[in-house]
């Protein structure tokens, strides 16, 4: 048989029994759609976490006071007594590192912000002008903290979007004088709302110069030092230099913890990729079930069409031609089911993205490809047995059946 004839014959045979065909196509479509949607969810979760972490700022190396024995990130580091505090001079010294582009010290404390008639408890972060670049933050109005000597603290503040809204409502904020703790400061800028945040949310922060914060909280220690490496490749070098410089300054003792964002990211990346693979595997089972259904339906179809197969043999069809016709039909049904499932799955993922705009539910390409290929191969593999059975039918018995 010629290829177009074969296709047309298989199409005729498939559309000759619309209920059977549509059920089968539906089964394959659901399998493929499940793969697409589930991997979209899994990979979406991975991307979501990645985005959250990269919003910390890329190429970031974070210095914590105190040494963590495990080397991992441990919330206990933040509260345990530290042998030697991080200071502004430490941060200044780090600027010498050849792989280090920017350094930004952070001192943190809780205080109150007040305007006449309103008072709110806020987290106050003392930092420097470069912090906005290190953390990739965006300003909505005004400017960030001014460039100045780190030891001098100008009486200015930059507030987060939520603080602005709660303190000033629709009124202007930049230029207003407010009281933060026992200091009067002028607001010079408002940060753009980030909408979401893991850990410390910049929407609810008040930034002041680091020297001012230390004076406010009556301490000369730092909560963190944020170090930005020159580029991605130099992160390990920046990390080593940071450690070396601080060790020198701390009399040869390595009493700080340096974490790179990459290490945290890599862990989450591995974890969530494994999760995506897992759900893809589960979805693939539904495809295997669809494959068995293909076999079942094709076997029934062989029985239903016994006399037709006998006739085709009498008219000169070889066993090979009949096998090919049934295989083509199975492959075609799987292909159509796979394509419909692909469209359904993409629509489902788009719907999830529409409902949760911050959740990047895009199915990964490998999963889509694997879903389509698995659907096709199971369809064809499970089509082999019915096709063989059809080809081996005895024409006399097949014709006698009515």
């Amino acid at each position, binding site marked *: 048989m*010629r290829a177009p004839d074969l296709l047309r014959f298989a199409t*005729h045979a498939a559309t000759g029994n619309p209920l059977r065909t549509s059920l089968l196509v539906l089964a394959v479509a659901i399998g493929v759609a499940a793969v697409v949607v589930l991997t979209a969810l899994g990979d979406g979760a991975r991307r979501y976490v990645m985005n959250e972490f990269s919003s910390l700022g890329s190429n970031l190396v974070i210095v914590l006071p105190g040494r963590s024995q495990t080397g991992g990130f441990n919330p206990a580091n933040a509260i345990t007594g530290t042998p030697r505090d991080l200071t502004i001079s430490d941060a200044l010294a780090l600027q010498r590192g050849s792989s280090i582009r920017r350094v930004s010290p952070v001192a943190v404390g809780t205080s109150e912000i007040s305007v006449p008639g309103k008072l709110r408890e806020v987290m106050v972060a003392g930092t420097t002008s470069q912090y906005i670049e290190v953390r990739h933050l965006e300003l909505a109005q005004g400017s960030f903290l001014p460039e100045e000597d780190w030891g001098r603290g100008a009486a200015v503040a930059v507030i987060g979007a939520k603080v602005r809204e709660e303190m000033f409502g629709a009124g202007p904020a930049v230029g207003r004088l407010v009281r933060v703790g026992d200091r009067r400061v002028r607001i010079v800028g408002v940060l753009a709302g980030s909408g979401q945040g893991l850990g410390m949310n910049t929407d609810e922060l008040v930034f002041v110069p680091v020297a001012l914060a230390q004076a406010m909280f009556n301490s000369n220690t730092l909560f963190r030092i944020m170090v930005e490496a020159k580029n991605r490749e130099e992160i390990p070098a920046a990390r080593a230099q940071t450690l070396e410089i601080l060790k020198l300054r701390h009399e040869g003792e390595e009493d700080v913890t340096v974490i790179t964002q990459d290490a945290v990211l890599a862990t989450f990346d591995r974890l969530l990729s494994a999760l995506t693979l897992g759900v893809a595997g589960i979805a693939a089972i539904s495809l295997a079930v669809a494959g068995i259904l293909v076999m079942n339906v094709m076997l029934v179809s062989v029985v239903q069409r016994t006399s*037709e197969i006998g*006739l085709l043999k009498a*008219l000169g*069809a070889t066993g090979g031609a009949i096998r090919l016709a049934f295989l083509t039909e199975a492959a075609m049904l799987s292909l159509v089911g796979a394509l419909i499932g692909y469209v359904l799955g993409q629509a489902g993922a788009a719907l999830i993205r529409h409902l949760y705009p911050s959740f990047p539910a895009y199915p990964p390409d490998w999963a889509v490809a694997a879903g389509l290929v698995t659907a096709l191969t199971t369809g064809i593999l499970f089509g082999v047995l019915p096709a063989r059975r059809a080809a081996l039918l005895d024409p006399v018995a097949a*014709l006698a059946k009515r």
Partner: protein
Amino acid sequence: MAEAQVRLSAIERVFHLGDSEVHALSGLNLSISAGEYVAVMGPSGSGKSTLLNLLGLLDRPDAGSYFLEGRDVSVLSPEEQAEVRSRRIGFVFQSFHLVPRLTAAENVALPMMLAGVSPKERSVRVERALKDYGLEDRAGHRPEELSGGQRQRVAIARATIMEPAMILADEPTGNLDRATGEEVVHLLEGLNSSGVTLIVVTHDPGIGSRARRQLLMEDGHLRHDSGLNG
């Protein structure tokens, strides 16, 4: 005598039904020349249909040999036999065996499609065949929309579309009323007079007696062959 078109010698065909053996055909010798008109008659179970299936290469003998046009076809592979069926043999069945989802024209074209004839040539030949059998205005109809006589004419058009040397008809009038049965027999006889060998299995003595040669089958044996006496 020239080499016969069909030569069967010492054909045995045994079916196993449970423990018992049924000799559907035993010790059968038969020669049929090209262009003959043969009626195969006999009671049910006498082996008529088995004979026809063997002649049509749908079945294989357990012993003996079958020469078709001088070639031993009983030893061919299934693929080669399919090729012979496609080119040399046309079947007409009692219950027509049209594919219900295909139109009359598509049913007629089916053997050519299986043989890989180009669509262009197919449509020319189908059109001519439908015209010959008075089915032009039925080309687009499905079998269920056709009368019994029309269905059998479609089946005959299909059997002849590959221009076979031999037509095997198994009770071609069995499902038709008298008048349409006549009509179908006339069609088949017309084909025979154009040189095609016609072998008809029938219960109907009226139709059997029209053939130039009658074979009477009984219990797997050839009881009577009018061709040997005449």
